[in-house]
């Protein structure tokens, strides 16, 4: 099962780990309604007992948990599988940086209180990415955006800079897509919130700044000369028009 790729969208297994009983119940209910199999665990240690034997297709982890917390569990899961998609549910703002700053390899995260639709949409994206990763590319599915050296695959939610893959979370991908789709246009933080979290209106503008910071970091790590995302003071951000000089 661990190596198995779900043959059909919505037929995968999801491990949901949260010490909050109500969250397990509501999130579990919603995901099951989408057709996924959901196993719930109340803390990291309990989850690890089962997941060590058999990896799920997607893991949804709370961070603050007694006994083993979400970050420890994520590290253990990553040690077993490089590709397992992981979504974090965080309730502390400062945890953002820990989750992604530590490069634990989370694929996405949502801040509590999150919108159920947002979570379901993210889970679906992760399944699609998982599903498409191994399947051969067909011309019909090809939905690509090329801006200068940047290529975004809207089907697989993957990004390449000058041919090299850049690991982005779903949110980062959506924000980069919003910017790169209209190079030279300024996008306000509110617009970027709308693009990055299409189903959630509770995200503060300032989280966009953290995402941009992380996007730049990831891209400059691939190419130290990368400087395509510009800050427009008082307005927002802009993707540099290819060929335009600074």
């Amino acid at each position, binding site marked *: 099962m661990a190596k198995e790729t779900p043959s059909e969208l919505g037929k995968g297994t999801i491990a949901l780990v949260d010490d909050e009983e109500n969250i397990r119940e509501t999130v579990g*209910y919603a995901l099951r309604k989408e057709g996924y199999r959901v196993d719930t665990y109340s803390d990291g240690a309990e989850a690890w007992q089962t997941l060590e034997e058999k990896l799920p297709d997607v893991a949804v982890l709370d961070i603050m948990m007694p006994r083993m917390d979400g970050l420890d569990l994520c590290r253990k899961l990553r040690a077993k599988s490089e590709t397992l998609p992981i979504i974090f549910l965080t309730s502390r703002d400062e945890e953002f940086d820990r989750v992604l700053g530590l490069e634990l390899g989370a694929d996405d995260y949502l801040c*509590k209180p999150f919108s*159920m639709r947002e979570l379901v949409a993210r889970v679906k994206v992760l399944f699609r990415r998982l599903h498409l990763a191994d399947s051969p590319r067909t011309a019909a599915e090809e939905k690509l955006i090329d801006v200068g050296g940047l290529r975004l695959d809207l089907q697989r939610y993957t990004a390449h800079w000058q041919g090299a893959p850049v690991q982005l979370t779903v949110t980062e991908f959506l924000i980069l897509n919003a910017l790169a789709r209209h190079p030279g246009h300024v996008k306000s933080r509110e617009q970027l919130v709308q693009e990055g979290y299409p189903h959630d209106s509770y995200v503060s503008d300032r989280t966009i700044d953290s995402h941009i910071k992380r996007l730049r970091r990831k891209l400059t790590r691939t190419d130290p000369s990368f400087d395509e995302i510009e800050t427009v003071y008082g307005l927002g951000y802009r993707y540099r028009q290819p060929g335009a000089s600074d």
Partner: protein
Amino acid sequence: MTEIAALPDERQASRRDAGRETTGREARRRDRLIRFFSRISIRLLAFNVLLVFLPAFGILSLETYEDELLDYQERAMVQQGRVLAAALGGHGPLDGERAQSILERMNREFDARLRVVDSDFLLLADSGRLGPRIDSSATPPAEDPEIRRNLIYRFGNFLYQSYSRFVLPPEPPLPHAGFYSTQKKLVGPEIEQALRGGYGSATRRTAGQRSLTLFSALPVLSDGDVVGAVLVSKSTFQILGSLYELRLSTFQVILLSVLAAVVLTLLVSTTIVRPVSKLQREALAILDRRGRLKGRFKAYQRLDEIGDLSRALAELTRRLHEHLRFTESFASDVSHEFKNPLASIRTATDLLEDEDDPAARQRFVQMIQRDVTRLGRLLSAVRQITQIDARLDAEPTEIFDLRRTLERLRESYELRSPGLSYALHVPEEPVQIEASPDRIVQVLENLLDNATGFSPEGATIRIDLTTDSDDAVLEVADQGPGIPEENLETIFDRFFSYRPEGKGGTGHTGLGLAIARAIVEGAGGDLSARNGNGGGAVFCLRLPTHS
């Protein structure tokens, strides 16, 4: 006033302004002056120097010493005069030749100038005319003594002269000592006195000298009649010489003392004032421009009061930082703790929107209700924990027997949880403690609630009260799953909650034990947890007994 009133309004105003300006400047100058003199180092210096000077003026004048010396000299002179008068007397009217020969004999032993007059004031003999063997003091050298040219002496003398000129009342000028020198007949008040049979004395200034000349006149008697007088005179030069020497050495001592006072003051101000100003600079540097606490005091190594002060300040800032950190982390803990029920409510409302199944809808509504209740409970617990210190101070304490409290609690818990038994062991003697009974009951209820919540059906909860020297020791032991070793201390952290599935439900806030510990520590005791030998958690409460 009238002048100002006569001025045109405008000029009046400008003059008033100018006046205010000057008074403002004066006030500032005065302020600066006051600040200057209120500096500890200046005050120390003034104090030390004054301490040296106050007795110094007394010593410098040396009035008493001088009087005594003069008195002594006068007595010696009178003695010499008496001897001469006795030798001359008893032989009828005085004879110049005889007087001269007696004088010549005596002059070898006496240092004063001796003169003899008859009853008509006529000079009969004078030791001053007896050739070179005359006491030097009788005709002192024209020059000032060596000592008076000493620089230090001159400086001291200047101070003393100014002091006596301006402070002491003026004395009438004395007659000149050359009073008798040109006369054949020595008609002076002291001789008149002696010729009347009494003792006469006068003080005159020595010519060209600072010293004085003392004159004493004694009658020469023969058969009860006054036949002449003996005039003894001597300059106070010798006395002055020793006085000058004394003054000089006194003044040297004073100068040295002043020097020592200055050096001492400088030393004291470097060891006291400098570190104090350093502390002050540190205090200013601790707050940044926006008034936020930035740095902290460094604790000095020094063992004196300033060291103590710096250590106290360092401790103060350390506690402040700790408190700030506590407040910050508390705010973040609280926000985290509120986000879980909020997330739960949000997901439930999201689901409600799309859900048609009435059973499921009912379930989500109940979930929302539970979470709202929980948020309310959380809010009041947060309020309680933030106010606990202030509340403990405000609540009256009572002295009460902990055994009675425990017995009452046992009864009510047995009624509430019939499936469990509560075994209470208390000592024979009363266990008196001084605390707020309501708060102690709150702590005990928290421990008993925990024990009850974690106990399987039919289990026994052991409550043991003992005394250990001055402490009351209470142990509450359950037969539940116990506490993981690594969490024995963290269970007292705010918002920590570890509950195995199905135990305790969602009613807990994660603040109960934190509040309990705060109460117990506020009452001077402590609260800790361990695992019992046979499994299960044991909470140990220690409170000081009232003696």
